[in-house]
């Protein structure tokens, strides 16, 4: 592939995302919007990882919030119990998540479809239960407070600071994911998604590819979790809970499985929508459920792929 074409495929989307990150604050009337933006990027980071697993490798995970929880609590337990600096704990959390993904992934990735879903569900629940019960380490169900992140002497505090940190990290994660998908591993994954048996016939080490992507998606989730904990200054076991896992899956599916851009859209929709729906008070939940259903019925490939197809068709 020519240099120009390679740049176009790999860099252009990242540049576009970076542009969004930079231009968006021009429309922000207050710090509240910075917070929403930061939350969108943090969740989008986790969702990109999950999308790699679900959309590209075709493996369902209903327990991904477990890795978010591991990352979040690493950023809490490290500084509070060990006195380690926050950025180091973030790294340690990511490595821990990767290790756990390796240990757990090897046996359970042999499972297929709904069975894999239940296994990942069990994993997520186990993490949440441990985090809730081991109160001497984790502060129990009320959680524990998290000291702020200091980077090179700069104390990262406030919604606007975190907007830039999470935005920049998301662009990085986005670029990485794109590169991954264009690489041999990425292509192998897509082959596995299309037909596992055919991929195996072609000589692809299916188990290893699946495990690799599982570990990568766990690391993404862990970093997102650490950011969430550091941003909020507080972490609770809810961040590893079942509802959080379902939320992440919903973001993947809503945005478009297999579309990395869709990860950002899905995260944006599910973070912004509850804020918008508050005007409906007690109808908020019912409307949220209805909107999710309507989206999935009419845009069943997810928002980005469906709209893209529609626009492309309309252009003709």
């Amino acid at each position, binding site marked *: 592939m020519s240099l120009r074409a390679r740049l176009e495929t790999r860099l252009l989307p990242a540049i576009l995302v970076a542009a969004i990150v930079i231009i968006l604050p021009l429309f922000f009337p207050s710090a509240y919007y910075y917070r929403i933006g930061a939350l969108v990027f943090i969740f989008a980071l986790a969702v990109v990882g999950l999308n790699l697993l679900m959309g590209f490798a075709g493996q369902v995970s209903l327990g991904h919030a477990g890795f978010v929880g591991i990352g979040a609590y690493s950023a809490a337990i490290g500084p509070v119990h060990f006195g380690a600096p926050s950025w180091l704990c973030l790294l340690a959390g990511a490595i821990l998540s990767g290790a756990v993904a390796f240990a757990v992934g090897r046996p359970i990735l042999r499972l297929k479809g709904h069975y894999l879903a239940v296994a990942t569900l069990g994993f997520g629940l186990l993490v949440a239960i441990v985090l809730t019960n081991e109160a001497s380490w984790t502060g129990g169900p009320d959680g524990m407070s998290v000291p702020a992140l200091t980077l090179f002497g700069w104390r990262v505090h406030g919604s606007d600071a975190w907007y830039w940190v999470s935005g920049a990290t998301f662009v990085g994660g986005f670029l990485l994911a794109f590169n991954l998908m264009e690489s041999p591993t990425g292509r192998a994954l897509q082959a596995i998604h299309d037909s596992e048996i055919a991929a195996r016939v072609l000589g692809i080490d299916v188990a290893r590819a699946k495990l690799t992507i599982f570990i990568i998606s766990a690391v993404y989730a862990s970093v997102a979790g650490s950011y969430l904990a550091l941003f909020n200054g507080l972490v609770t076991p809810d961040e590893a809970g079942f509802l959080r896992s379902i939320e992440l899956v919903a973001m993947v599916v809503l945005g478009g499985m297999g579309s990395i851009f869709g990860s950002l859209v899905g995260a944006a929709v599910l973070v*912004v929508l509850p804020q918008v729906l508050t005007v409906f008070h007690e109808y908020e939940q019912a409307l949220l459920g209805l909107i999710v259903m309507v989206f999935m019925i009419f845009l069943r490939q997810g928002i980005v792929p469906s709209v893209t197809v529609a626009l492309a068709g309309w252009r003709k």
Partner: protein
Amino acid sequence: MRTMQHITATAAIGLCALLGAGLQASAQIKIGSVLSVTGPASFLGDPEKKTLEIYVDEINAKGGVNGQKLQLIVYDDAGNANNARTFATRLVEEDKIDVMVGGSTTGSTLAMIPVFEDAKIPFISLAGAIQIIEPVHKWVFKTPHTDKMACEKIFADLKNRKLTTIAMISGTDAFGKSMRDQCVAVAPKAGITIATEETYGPRDSDMTPQLTNIRNKAGVLAVVNPGFGQGPAIVTRNYQQLGIKLPLYQSHGVASKQFIELAGPAAEGVRLPAAALLIADKLPSKDPQKPVVVNYTRTYQQKSGQAVSTFGGHAYDGLMILVQAMQRAKSADKAKVRDEIEKTKGYIGTGGIVNMSATDHMGLDLSAFHMLEIKGGDWTLVPGT
């Protein structure tokens, strides 16, 4: 094709960004609130929201505060601390509230404290744990009794009845865990020995294994159950099912008459510490709290169609303390209101008589709790408590 995808996504995100706009207006006093109206803590948040809405309407009907009407802005955090934090930021930055009463759970309160401390907005919390006011945060107060007080009250009664060796069975939710921790901390000083402990999930349907273990433990003279919601009702039923005859103590998280309905005949003889609100009609007529609690009970039951709950009572107290502070300060200026809240003396509420100070941001003492016993399907006051 790819470019199309990118443009689509950009447009979608732009749309989302635009959708978040908020509206402003009016010279009303803005009272913000973040409550767990749905989710695992809706048992707390739902009566709190109803109470705030009922009484803000009543106050406005009588002309408002200092000649200004009140505007109540309530958000539902669904029991999630992250959401609570987001809504707190929204209340401060977008809705530009003057004062804040809310935070149904300790988790959501702790998540919101930094936001209100930074914004210098007086915040009256509706959550139970002692760490909300110890150490004292300048801008944070609370109305519910601490779980430490509940433990002290129960232990005092146990000591009285010479039941000094007990077992505890607590819910693993935040309320149950927090109270259990406080009870363990307070027990030695109160002369109580905790012989064994069990836990249950807040949504479990059968606690007979845990209760069987407690029954089999030698030397246990009474059982205490820190928890809230449906758990205590099921524990009480299971207790009777297993034929355990030891005295059973519930916590203040049981909070309403519905517990007696759900636990049925098994509730006979159960004791718990509660605010005067639960026995409004049985208070002696010269009890200073009587008019307040009778009034609140009548109004709440009439307007909401449901039985009173002490959690709703805490919201009432929080609102009234705020309103009275604003009246004394003759303005809605945040710093002045905060100072007046701290000077609250002799406020008679549903939870007790409140006397705050610079070192005590709650203002209740043990006399705010009464020990109740369930007899004949109704609450009765244990004499002398």
